[in-house]
């Protein structure tokens, strides 16, 4: 077993599909024992990256390592230690949920008794003998997650695991991921449910057009904002004063307050500048961004 402290590391990982660049020199580092959120708009390269980590797609250039092992040369060992759910859960429609998991168990040498354990973990024991084709999307997703847990993997790669789950299911999924982290597993998860990612992930990376545009802890990324919210009257006059300052790069009026883009260490200078014009702010504070707003700004999806 490799002693690497990094669960996943990519170096200039690149994937071209003809003229389309799906993943562009991606550098990513996921530590062991953390829940890492992988965000990006549709078509940003998340699933392609996950496919390359699992050997389903071959990189055009660059390198991917899992547990410090090269994916290209050590794929069997990597897969033995990894559980994956890529895009929608895929199973045989003519088999029941239980039989599908047994098929997966056959592939990994997992005993049938373990199938019962994972069915219990995702609360699917009662419906396990129904044909997979008769399941709702949420039930299919649960079976898919159960499949990833069959081998008690060190690393879980989950692509949109909340798809189709009802609110209770999403909460269960969150709890499950937190339990897995507590037990020492690493979870690499992509999701469009940014609120969930914000709550559960230790660190995130945001992907846009195949490139990482931000990577770090949620707190770091949201705290790195250089916007200050100021409540002051009269609003328009204050805005004009601040717009005239050379070190202020943007002033917007939003919800009865000014939103000023300024180096955070110059916040005090804003108060001084307004005071010189006889305007005294009642509130001045760094603007706490939501992950959703941050995501939309970075990916340009807001437009």
């Amino acid at each position: 077993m490799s002693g690497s402290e990094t669960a996943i590391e990519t170096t200039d990982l690149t994937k071209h599909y003809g003229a389309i660049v799906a993943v562009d020199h991606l550098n990513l580092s996921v530590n062991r024992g953390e829940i890492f959120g992988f965000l990006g708009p549709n078509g940003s390269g998340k699933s392609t990256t996950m496919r390359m980590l699992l050997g389903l797609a071959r990189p055009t250039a660059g390198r991917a390592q899992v547990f410090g092992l090269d994916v290209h040369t050590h794929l069997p060992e990597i897969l033995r230690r990894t559980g994956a759910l890529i895009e929608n859960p895929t199973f045989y429609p003519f088999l029941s949920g239980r039989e599908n998991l047994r098929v997966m168990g056959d592939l990994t040498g997992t005993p049938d008794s373990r199938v019962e354990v994972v069915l219990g973990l995702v609360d699917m024991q009662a419906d396990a003998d129904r044909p997979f084709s008769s399941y709702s999307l949420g039930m299919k997703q649960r079976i898919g997650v159960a499949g990833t847990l069959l081998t008690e993997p060190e690393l879980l790669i989950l692509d949109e695991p909340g798809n189709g789950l009802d609110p209770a299911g999403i909460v269960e999924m969150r709890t499950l991921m937190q339990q897995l982290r507590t037990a020492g597993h690493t979870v690499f998860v992509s999701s469009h449910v940014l609120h969930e990612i914000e709550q559960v992930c230790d660190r995130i990376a945001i992907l846009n057009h195949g490139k990482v545009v931000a990577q770090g802890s949620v707190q770091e990324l949201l705290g790195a904002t250089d916007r200050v919210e100021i409540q002051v009257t009269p609003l328009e006059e204050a805005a004009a004063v601040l717009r005239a300052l050379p070190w202020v790069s943007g002033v917007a009026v939003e919800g009865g307050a000014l939103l000023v883009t300024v180096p955070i260490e110059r916040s005090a200078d804003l108060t001084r500048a307004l005071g010189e014009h006889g305007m005294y702010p009642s509130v001045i504070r760094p603007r706490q961004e939501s992950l959703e707003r941050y995501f939309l700004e970075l990916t340009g999806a807001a437009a």
Partner: protein
Amino acid sequence: MIGFLRADWRKLRQRWMPRILLLILLAVVALIFLGTSSRARFRSDLALPDGLVVALSLGAGFAAFIWPVLAGSWSGGEYGWGTVRMALTRQPSRIAFSLSGLIMVLLTVGFGLLLVLGVGAIAGSLVAAANHITAPAPPAGTSAAGVIVKLYFGAWFASAFYAVLAYTAGAVFRSTPAGIGIGIGFAVAQSAVSAIFTALGDPWKSFASHFPDAYTMGLTARLENELIHSGPFGRLEPNTASIGASMLGLAIYMAILLALMLAAVRQRDVTS
């Protein structure tokens, strides 16, 4: 490989399609026995042991229309359902994944021919008892049991070609309809093109004699002819390929198909 075989065996046992196809095949063989038994001239060919030869010959004859359905849906289904992704993220050997499914299909073909033998035995016995007939004695020095064993494997080998063709098409085009369509369509197109080439005369006619159909027919007809010499079942055309040439020809065709499939599944990304 063992893991894939275990998984495929589980799938095979739970799947309805093979059972339905086997039922169709057995029903067709039984109906042909019934129809043939009404013609006094051919009736003696149905009595045992000749009836077993006839049954196997029929089993091989319908291979082009039965087994492509199973083989094409087996390989194409893995891509259509996306289960190839599930399997290859557990066991990364794409070659083992592809060959395991094919092995399961070919085992089913073998099992199907055993059942065909069973139907032939029952139907042949019934025809003989109802009409008070016996099969002619085998030619001197010929063992009926030996011919039946050889024909069983010959019929399996001939049937395997159509299974391999459809399986390859399903895997290469990642589609069940493509697998089944190309598998069955090839058999139909081959007959038509073969007839046209034969009508055109040489050199076209000689091309037709190397079509897979010429070899599957040659293999089963030659073996059949070792026991039955008259009637529609034991007839040999003047240019019927030899057993050796048929086996070699089919082996080359199957090797090409397998190489094509394995190259495709090894090289390309799994995008399903």
